């Protein structure tokens, strides 16, 4: 459901293209995009009709949610919102109790088995505060009284292209590769409040299973890029093993994660000392590289680098004088 036509808007400098980053690397509005409800059709009434399945007889199948009691549904909502509401088209509001009612109807009619609601608005956690149906997971980008912010401005297009919550969600998924078995708990714990500038709050009390056992592919599909090669593919073992170590630690609780990483580094250092003196330098360099790889925010790395350059500059100027 897209209320505004952004891609082919007359003011869009890049027609038929919607980017989520300033570097314009990924065009979200690809060739196979499908928008079922757009423009004036995006109303609270149509949204609730889609959820509950109460359409007129003439409505075609592509505009219906064809789900049954074994379906997993992902519901992603973004826009302007506030305490217990979400704004539609600047003239209507979806209230939290209406959403809870619709979800209750869906459960009674057997229209889903598991439902994940992601909300990216101001005070997002209030929108799902009234939910009481089993099998529902919800995550919001901010708590009551907090605002959600956009990530960065693309001065070429002239608007902010992505919100912080969405940006870090995408960053999480971009980091995964085909063989990872990341769970929802790793997704939920990957949000850093100081980077989001708000607290991402999630609600798991209505969900029967543990977060660590639910893979993200339960709700998120994946696109496999198939490349046809004539030669056999060589699988490099080194990268895979280190990734595996990190993945195991991510699946634990946050405190355990920190402890395990420290112990890993410590083990490496101990090993190096017994082997050879030069090896310690190499291992320290490797540990530094690992730390750098774990950096989620490249900006802080750049700032650290700049700050470290200052003493170097001072030393060189002192030497030259």
């Amino acid at each position: 459901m897209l209320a505004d036509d952004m891609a082919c808007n007359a003011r869009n400098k890049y027609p038929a293209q919607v980017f989520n980053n300033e570097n314009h690397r990924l065009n979200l509005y690809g060739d196979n995009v499908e928008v079922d409800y757009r423009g004036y059709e995006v109303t609270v009434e149509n949204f609730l009709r889609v959820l509950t399945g109460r359409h007129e007889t003439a409505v075609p199948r592509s505009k219906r949610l064809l789900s049954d009691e074994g379906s997993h549904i992902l519901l992603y909502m973004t826009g302007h919102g506030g305490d217990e509401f979400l704004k539609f088209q600047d003239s209507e509001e979806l209230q939290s109790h209406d959403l809870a009612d619709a979800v209750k109807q869906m459960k009674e009619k057997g229209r889903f088995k598991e439902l994940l609601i992601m909300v990216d608005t101001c005070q997002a956690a209030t929108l799902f505060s009234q939910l009481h149906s089993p099998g529902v997971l919800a995550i919001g980008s901010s708590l009551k009284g907090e605002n959600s912010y956009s990530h960065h401005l693309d001065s070429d297009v002239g608007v902010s292209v992505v919100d912080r919550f969405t940006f870090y969600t995408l960053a999480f998924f971009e980091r995964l590769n085909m063989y990872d078995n990341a769970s929802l708990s790793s997704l939920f714990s990957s949000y850093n409040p100081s980077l989001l500038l708000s607290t991402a709050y999630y609600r798991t009390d209505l969900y029967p299973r543990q977060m660590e056992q639910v893979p993200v592919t339960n709700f998120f599909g994946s696109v496999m890029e198939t490349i046809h090669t004539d030669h056999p593919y060589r699988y490099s073992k080194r990268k895979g093993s280190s990734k595996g170590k990190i993945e195991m630690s991510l699946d634990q609780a946050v405190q355990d994660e920190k402890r395990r990483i420290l112990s890993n580094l410590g083990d490496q250092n101990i090993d190096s000392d017994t082997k050879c003196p030069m090896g310690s330098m190499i291992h320290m360099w490797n540990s530094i590289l690992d730390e750098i790889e774990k950096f989620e925010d490249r900006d802080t790395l750049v700032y650290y680098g700049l700050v470290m350059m200052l003493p170097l500059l001072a030393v060189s100027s002192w030497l030259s004088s």
Partner: protein
Amino acid sequence: MELLRRPIFSLLLLLSLPISFPSISLGSAVQGEDGHREEEFTEELLLKPLPDRKVLAHFHFENTAQRTQSYGRHHHLFPKAISQLVKKFAVREMELSFTQGRWNYESWGGFDPISSSNAKPPGVELWATFDVPPDQVDASWKNLTHSLSGLFCASINFLESSATYSAPEWAFQPASGNLRYGTLPREAVCTENLTPWLKLLPCRDKAGISSLMDRPSIYRGFYHSQRLRLRPAKIIADGADSGIVLEQTLTVVLQPNGFRTKSSHSSENKIPPTWAMSSLLGRKIEGRCVLAKSSNVYLQLERGLVAELNALKENQEFVGTTVLNDDLIENPAFEISVKPDWVLKEVGNLPTGSSSLMYGYSIGKSTDSGPFDLHLTWKSPMVWSCPRPPLHASRFLMGSGNERGAIAISLRSTGLNEGLYGSNKDKESCVLPVNVFQVVPWYIKVYFHTIKVFIDEQRKAVPDVIEKIRVSPSEDKVLPGVMEMVLKLPCGVKSAAMTLEFDKGFLHIDEYPPDANQGFDIPSAIITFPNVEAAMHFNQFSSSDKSPLLSRFREKNPVQSYTEVLLVPLTTPDFSMPYNVITITCTVFALYFGSLLNVLRKRASEEERLLRAKGRSSPLSRLLAKLRRKKEVEPQSSTTSSSLFSSKLVVKIILVAAIAICWQYFG
């Protein structure tokens, strides 16, 4: 034993397959021999340089199928979605177009077949005729709009309400019958509309000419319009079942890159920009679609351009240079990178004398000779005029304010109507009929008795000019206002205008769209010249290879032009009024009840004071006692304040500070 039986059984099947194959192929061959019973698909692309330095690219895909009485039918090339739609809603003819941009009739032409059938109003336009009894047509139309909205990811379902569609009888299409017409002027057109349209083609957008459709290049154009036309096929032998012809066209007007910065000031003596298919559309044709019967690219030179080239050639011949060919492949004005496979010339009696030229290229199979890319390099500045319709139609609003206004349709001569005298020497009786079809929403309440007609800026009586008029008055929230009329104008008319007054209506608060303050649209009016045909006949180089695009050019369709869409501001309510009313009412209530309670509380303490004061004697002494008490109280309070200054005030300050600190940290 069963294990033995299975491999033997499978072996027998394998052996029997090659025997059955020839029978299957024989069967298809039998169908194939019967000429009009097989499915055919052809793809064509036409490129045409336009006088204002832009390039027109017109894609034409035609798919023919046989309609049968039985429901289950396997299609081999024809899209199943369309055949199911036709079968379910008994659609006889249908046209659906998605357009963005306005067709510039002055620079891009209005007289040729492309502009007459492909210049569409902005937004969505849908019309359809049905093979059902007249009382079921509305129900079929409603279901059709819903199915199309699901198929093309657009809000075509808004056309289901009777206030949005109309039933023209003779002004739009001659002899229509069960025709329904509807348009949505404000519908956006984007990739999600083009993708399902391309999925109806046998090769999708993966191979053949349709692989050229780079979405950013198409939507960067000045005008783009995708059209889907369904019509019954002309039957040769039996009239029992007729086939369907699905015609899909995409018309794009593009600007070649690199000349945006230069051509701001007088572009008359500048050389038109060089363009290539790869620079306009971003891709080259890798190969043809293997399912297509024919795959051709055409480059058309208009009559005006050919006339200019001939004049240039004559000048050069006069000077004494080499004699050039008649087909103008090598000429001093421009150079083409690929030599055309054949050249077609327009035939028939033409008004100006010079005929249009068509260079044809046949796209070979896959990568025989590399990808196909056509370059056109201009060598000398060239200015030519395009064929314009006899009268240039435009429409505008008159009047101001939120209560009333007027619509004016103006027809201005372009000089072409002079040529319509033809053989009729009697200039007095030569008459140019003009059909006008206009649909106006119900909230624009038109008064048909206020029609005024002006010819050559002189007011004429209405019966003198309007030969036939049919009006369907609007009904609030139910029907739009429909007007069909035939104007008889003298052939040598310089300008004609027609005005119509209206009142603006009121909408219910629920009926306003979210962006109500932008205004409301009056859809385009359709101006048709029934006596003037937009047809182009080209000599076919071989009768076996018939091009559907050129056959469409030969159809005798009348010249049609669309006027602009009008934006009418209506009175909109203040949508924040409910909020304001609630706030004001609550404030009034709060003030009233608050002050009431306050006053009640004060009375009670007054009574206490009275009881205390009862100890004293007379009212005067009471007054004196009051004053004295005040004097007593003051020094008392001062003493008390002096004693309590440090502790109470300090405690208060500390409390306020603590609250402020807590608020700062925990808020």
